[in-house]
Structure formats: C-alpha cells, structure tokens
C-alpha cells in the first residue's frame, strides 16, 4: 500500500462519501488540504467571502439535496466564523459536515497563533465532533461524520484537523465500514403503533402536525395518504413546510405564532393531534399548556428526547416518520374502515375558504402579500424559495404556497439573519437547473451581502428579492405592538442603494415599486444569466398578521383587517 498525506487521505475520504462540492475559505492551518484540492477535478470548491456563509451554504445545499453539505475553514478565526452557521444547522437538524484546520498537535493548548479550542466550541452545537490526531483516525472520522450527520435526526458534525496530521504520511485504508456502536431506533414499537391506531379510529376530528422530520425521512407520500384516508387536515411547522403540497385541499399551512388562522383553529378544535417529526417548538404551540386543549396527542419522532419534552404525549412513538406512518396505514387498512370524517372534512374545507389569505392588494407602496403573489405567478412547483429572517420570512412562510418537500428553506430554530442569501447559493449549487429565489429583508441581506461576489465569480445565478422596508421590520413590529410604538434602533434608513450595490459586484439589479412589476421583473432576473437583486420597496408600516403573541393561545390571534 502507498503512503499518502493526511490532506490527500481527507480528500479521497470525502470523495468516497460522494462529496462533490465544498464551501470554504483557506488559511494557514489548512493550506495542505487546499493544495490537494488544487488538482482535484471531481471536487468543486466554492470560495465564499465569509466563513459564516460557507456554513449556511452547506446547510442550504444539504436541505435542497437531502444529503450532507460540506464546509471548510482555517483554524481560529475561520473556524469561529463557522460557529453561527453550525448552530443554525444543529437547531434545524441539517446534516452539515464542517472541516477546519487546527494548529499542529504539539502546539495545542499553547495559545498558538490562530488557535481556538474548537473541540469545546463545537461540542455543544454539533451531533458529534472530532479532533483527529492521526491520518488513520482522520479517515475513520470522515466516514463516521457522514454516517452520524444523516443517521436518525440529521445534524452537523465537525472535524478539527491539526496541520501536522495533514502533512504527515501514512498508509491508510479508507474503511468500507466503521464501527459505530451507537445505533438509532427506526422501527416503531408495534404496541405503540397499536395504541395510536386505536386513538385514530376513535377520533372524530384528527389533525396531522408535520415537521421537518417528515421531509428528512421522505414520508410525504405517507403523510398525504394518511390525511386523505382520514379526511384530516395537515398543519406544519416552519421546518415542515412543503411536507404536503400546500395546494392540497387538506393542507392548512403553517401553524403557530405567524401561522394561518385555519391551522391554529383546527388545532384548537381537534380531538386528536398526530405530531410527526416535529418538536413542538414554542413558535408552533404558543402556550404549551393550552396547546390542542381538546386533543389526545400522538407524537412520532426518531429523536426520543423530543417526545414529552414540551408537550405531553398520550402515545409516544420513537421511530422513523416514514416507517411509522407506513405501519399505521397498514394497520388502519386492515381494520374495519372508518374512513373519511366527512363532517370534519367539511369544516376544514370551509375554514380553508373562509380564512384564505388575502393577497390581491393594489396599494402603493407595495404590500408584501402582493409581492409574494406575483412571485408565485412566476415560480413553478420545482422552484426553491429560501428566506432570510424577520417579517419577510414570515410573509413567505404564511403566504407562499410550497408544492413539495425541500422547496422551502428557512432558518427556524435559530432565526439567523444572514442565513438566506448564502443558503440560496448552496441550494442553487445543489440544484443548478432549478430556480432559486431568496426572499430577503433589507437588514438580513446586509449581514451577508458580500456573498454577491461569490455568486458572481462562481456564476451561481440566484435571485434575491429584498423586501425593502427600511426597517428591522420584525423588531419594529414588536415595538409597535408591545412597546407603544417606540421604535428604538430599528430604522435602517435608505442606505445602501441595493441596485447599485448589486451592480458594483457585477450582478444584475433592478427596483420594484408598483403592483404588476414584480412578476415581469422576476422573470427577467431569472433569465438575465447573472445573479440578481430586486430591491422591492414595500410598505414599511405593514405587520405580519395574524399573530399569536409569545406564550399566547393559538386561537387568540391579533388579526388584521
């Protein structure tokens, strides 16, 4: 067997995991790896302009593709810049593998130049992390990292790679299989399934509550089948958006603080709630003690920690969403058929009609609802919408009709401003033939707008639609509603000129100010052959409504007109 360097071993280990893209920035402590990448045609490295963007791009890539995304950085400052992005991936259960250079092992712990204690820093924000000390350990860590990232509930994994390990030579074998002693439980306990089926049969008004776990386990077909079999509506968390095509008659859209009224009311009225691959976050449930007050709860999740953590579960089922739903469907079909709850179904369809969100505003300044409506006219069911954080995000989550899994990507658990644009670049790299649109806020976009350079240089042609309200709008909304309109430090003003900013980077820029302009300009932007920025000037006074105040009850919403 031939001796190879750690750096070469890393790259071939990555290749054997099927890695084709890496987002990153080099530096002193990881030059040996970049030296190998220099002549490696099968791995495309995308040079970003800030490491936070590398992590978000890898995250967006992973969510769009359903496979791990990889980011890379140098030691110290480079690695620390990844931290927000890794935590974001952890909170939203996204499989990101992060690899960072580290000072040589003999310097560890000495405050050497650009040393940071990454083992400690990454430990609480990853599913697992490694500090590898030898070339053999390195190749095993890579194999494990990819397994762990995807096993059960997905999540990020970090490998810290001292410089001397990159340069030292060893005979290594890329292991076909590595021993992971810990094993996830995917198959549901049949007794629990039986209990669940009993509750389902008895229920008059069942509701399905789907989270990101449905998407990661590929359980959308089973989810829709169960909904149709029962005549039960499906509500989703932000992560679960797209788990059912939202134009399906039984889809009520997102639940919670900025959820749809019909979704919040259905949950309040239901007598059985089936949570699938969802963690009942406070943004979804409001006051957990009054969540689904009339309902028994079945909670299905592959991560047992989530079950019973925030909301009581009458039937807890630890298992993979797809396999569990299949078992439930099988058992239901084998029984005397109860079939569709027609009365409940009628009520759902009626709520869906009654509370259909209004979007056809003609106002100037533009209403964001109108902008989303025009975006929907242009995008097809395959298109991916990525969002930033704030009002823009909640308008997209509330109004945009997603027609399939992995077509709506947003920062949920961490709510990270600056996520959307780099994540959209990751999604576009993953799906080069798909239209990718970032629904951005002016504040969020500026947190990673330097990535316009990355997009232009690498010809990653996404369209960023900035919902420009000159405010940190979501914070302003809270100030308006709960702090007597005292808008402390939320006015952003008129700088920069986003069109000129785009042009300065060599991207395409245009401004949208009137109803009817968005659709044609978005079409043009998608066809212009460059990354594009649309500065969409919207009404700064608009709030995201309805809204359930933090800790409130879902049926007690602040409503608009």
């Amino acid at each position, binding site marked *: 067997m031939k001796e190879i360097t750690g750096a070469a071993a890393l790259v071939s280990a990555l290749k054997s995991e099927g890695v084709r893209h890496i987002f990153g920035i080099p530096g002193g402590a990881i030059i040996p790896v970049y030296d190998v990448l220099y002549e490696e045609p099968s791995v495309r490295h995308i040079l970003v302009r800030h490491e936070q963007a590398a992590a978000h791009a890898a995250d967006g890539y992973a969510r769009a593709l359903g496979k791990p995304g990889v980011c890379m950085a140098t030691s110290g400052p480079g690695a620390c810049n990844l931290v927000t992005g890794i935590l974001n991936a952890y909170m939203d259960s996204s499989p990101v593998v992060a690899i960072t250079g580290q000072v040589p092992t003999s310097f560890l712990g000495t405050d050497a130049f650009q040393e940071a204690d990454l083992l400690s820093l990454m*430990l609480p924000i990853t599913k697992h992390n490694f500090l590898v000390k030898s070339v053999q350990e390195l190749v095993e860590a890579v194999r494990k990292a990819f397994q762990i990232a995807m096993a059960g509930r997905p999540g990020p994994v970090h490998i810290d790679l001292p410089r001397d390990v990159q340069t030292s030579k060893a005979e290594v074998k890329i292991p076909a299989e590595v021993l992971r002693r810990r094993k996830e439980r995917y198959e549901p306990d049949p007794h629990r399934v039986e209990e669940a089926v009993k509750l389902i049969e008895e229920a008059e008004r069942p509701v399905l509550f789907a989270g990101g776990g449905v998407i990661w386990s590929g359980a959308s077909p089973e989810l829709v089948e169960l909904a149709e079999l029962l005549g039960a509506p499906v509500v989703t968390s932000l992560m679960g958006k797209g788990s059912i095509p939202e134009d399906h008659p039984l889809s009520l859209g997102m639940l919670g603080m900025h959820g749809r009224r019909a979704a919040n009311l259905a949950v309040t009225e239901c007598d059985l709630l089936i949570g699938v691959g969802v963690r009942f976050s406070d943004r979804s449930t409001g006051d957990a003690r009054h969540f689904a007050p009339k309902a028994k709860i079945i909670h299905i999740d592959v991560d047992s920690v989530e079950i019973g953590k925030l909301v009581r579960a009458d039937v807890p089922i630890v298992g993979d969403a797809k396999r569990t739903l299949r078992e439930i469907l099988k058992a239901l079909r084998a029984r005397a058929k109860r079939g569709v709850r027609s009365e409940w179904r009628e009520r759902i369809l009626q709520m869906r009609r009654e509370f259909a969100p209004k979007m056809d505003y003609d106002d100037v300044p533009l209403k964001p609802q109108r902008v989303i409506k025009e975006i929907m006219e242009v995008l097809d069911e395959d298109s991916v919408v990525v969002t930033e954080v704030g009002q823009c995000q909640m308008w997209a989550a509330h109004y945009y009709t997603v027609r399939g899994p992995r077509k709506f990507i947003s920062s949920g658990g961490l709510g990270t401003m600056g996520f959307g644009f780099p994540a959209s670049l990751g999604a576009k790299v993953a799906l080069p033939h798909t239209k990718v649109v970032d629904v951005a806020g002016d504040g969020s976009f500026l947190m990673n707008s330097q990535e316009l350079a990355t997009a232009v240089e690498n010809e990653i042609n996404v369209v960023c639609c900035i919902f420009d309200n000159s405010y940190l709008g979501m914070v302003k909304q809270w100030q308006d509603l709960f702090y007597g309109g005292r808008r402390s430090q939320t006015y952003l003003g008129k700088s920069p000129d986003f069109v000129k900013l785009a042009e300065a980077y060599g991207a395409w820029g245009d401004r949208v100010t009137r109803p009817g302009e968005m659709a044609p300009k978005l079409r043009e932007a998608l066809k212009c052959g460059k990354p594009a920025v649309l500065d969409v000037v919207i009404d700064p006074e608009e709030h995201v409504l309805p809204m359930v105040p933090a800790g409130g009850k879902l049926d007690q919403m602040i409503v608009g007109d």
Partner: protein
Amino acid sequence: MRTRIFSVLCENVAGVMMRVSRCFTRRQINMDSITVGIEPSGLARIIILFQADDKMTAFMRKILLRLEPILEVQVLEPENSIAREICLFKTRKLEEEEMSETIRLVQSAGGKVLEIREGSLIGEIGGNHEEVERLLSSLGQGMLKEVARSGQVYLSRNNRGSS
C-alpha cells in the same frame, strides 16, 4: 426531587466527561458526584449522582443516550445496588493522648491508619456513604486538615440495571 444515580457505559474517548457533564450544567443540574473507571472491555463507566424529579431523570437519560460515545445508561436505585466510597484523610498535629484516641476511633469505625508522621495521622475509610460520613463527623472539623474522597461508585445488584 431526590438523589438519582446513573451508571453510564461509554466509549473511552477524549472529551467524553465534558460531553456528559455539560448536559447537566445546561439544564441547571448540579451533580453531587461523578466518577469514572475503565472496564476490562476498554469501555468507560461513569457513575453520576444528582438531584432531580422523575420527569427530569427520564429526560436526562435520553439526553445522554443521544451522545455519540454513549452506549447505555442504567438508572440505579439505591436499594438495588451496592455503593462504596473511599476517603483518605490527614489530621492536624496531635498530642499523644489525642493520637491514641483517634487511632481507636478510626479502627473501631472500620478504617485504617496508613501513616503517622510528625504527629499527624493519615488514615483511610472505605464503605458506604454513611459509614464514611460517620467517621468524618466523629473526628470533627477541628481535627481534620485535609480530606480526599473518591465520590460514590455504584454497582447494580441485578444482571441488568433498571433502565
């Protein structure tokens, strides 16, 4: 809230104690004691004592099981397990009379005198927590100059601990 005992079997990898202990810190739980030993298999067994109610105990067990190096978490109940701890102690300089009284106290409590040097005694007591406590309190704070305790280790009486 009462004392809970976890017996955690895990891979003996760097940082595993940190991984385990931060799970408790993050949930505002102070550990009463944490000890670790390596089993013949090369795996490590960590014994953790902490105060919690039933719900938190079940939650913490699942939290630990989610960690990659952790293979098994047994919840030990005091009545189904054997507990031991060892304690070394050094007295201040003793007068002759005090010394013979101290030696008597230590020996009658089942302890051992390990060394007497320059009028100060180094002794050992092993046993369950109460036995150790009893001797230490009968010696009294004024007498003891230094105390080193192992923390409690537990072994399940069953072949499988309740989990």
